[in-house]
């Protein structure tokens, strides 16, 4: 299983850097970087917070792909 995400794309669209997004959702820049690289799958709460910032749904940002 794998969790892909479109965080970078949404961040660019909203003109936000990793630090800004981190501040908005209450995490560090490293955590955003880890999520973007696919090295860390966020909790449901964090995924919902990120989706809220972009005005999108969690499904639009995170794509679950079965291998």
């Amino acid at each position, binding site marked *: 299983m794998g969790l892909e995400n479109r965080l970078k794309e949404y961040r660019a669209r909203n003109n936000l850097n990793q630090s800004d997004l981190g501040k908005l959702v209450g995490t*560090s820049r490293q955590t955003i970087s880890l999520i973007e690289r696919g090295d860390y799958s966020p*909790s449901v709460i964090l995924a919902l917070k990120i989706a809220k910032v972009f005005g999108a749904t969690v499904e639009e940002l995170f794509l679950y792909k079965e291998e």
Partner: protein
Amino acid sequence: MKKLNSTIKFFIILALSAFIGGLLGGSIVYGEAAINRSLNSFQNFIITNNLLIQAILLGFCAILILILYFSAKLKVKQLEENNDVLFDQIDRQLGFLVPFISVTMITGFCLFGITIANTLEDFEFLGFFIFLANTAFTLIMTVLTIKLTKVLYPGKKGNPLDFNFDKEWVKSCDEAEKFIIYKAAYRCYQLMNIVYCGAVTLCMLTSIAVSIGIFPYLLIGFLWITQTLIYAISANRFQHGQLDNGQ
């Protein structure tokens, strides 16, 4: 088939380990005198030059800590917003500095233990002074490094001189940072099981050539059992409602 393969692999490793153990044990019996001599001369070297080793080793560590700390501090001053490369560089430097300071403190404790064990009749004040100086230095550097880390991560909480520091620090970490801490702690647990096993084997092999008494076995056994029990009890507690992961 896969299960059978892993069982065969397990028995092959077991047989190989027994063979290597036998080979090592045999060679120790044959080279008993030489091993005895070299271990004794190594021990004598450490005891005779204990203070010098302490001064040089801990002095070198102290210089390295100061260089790393002040270089990190300078980089923090130069850090501008959005400079992710420099941020990562400082983060890595501080991530090395904190455990290095701890290792220096632990080394100081161990070397002071050797001083105490071998100079009971004629107490070495210089050894005591080096130990005190090293402990004070490492404590001050820990506090300063944590302060610097807090400049980088303003959300971090906790005072290193407080007994609840670890608890407060982890509490102020975000979920990915916590995940990293827990993963690293589990890796440490796994590796320590191998280290304890290796230490007991090493003691058994050494005892063929040199008498080391029963205390190394008791100490390793005590530490190994303590670690296993703490892990098991904590895992059991977390499994039955004390996980506290719903924030």
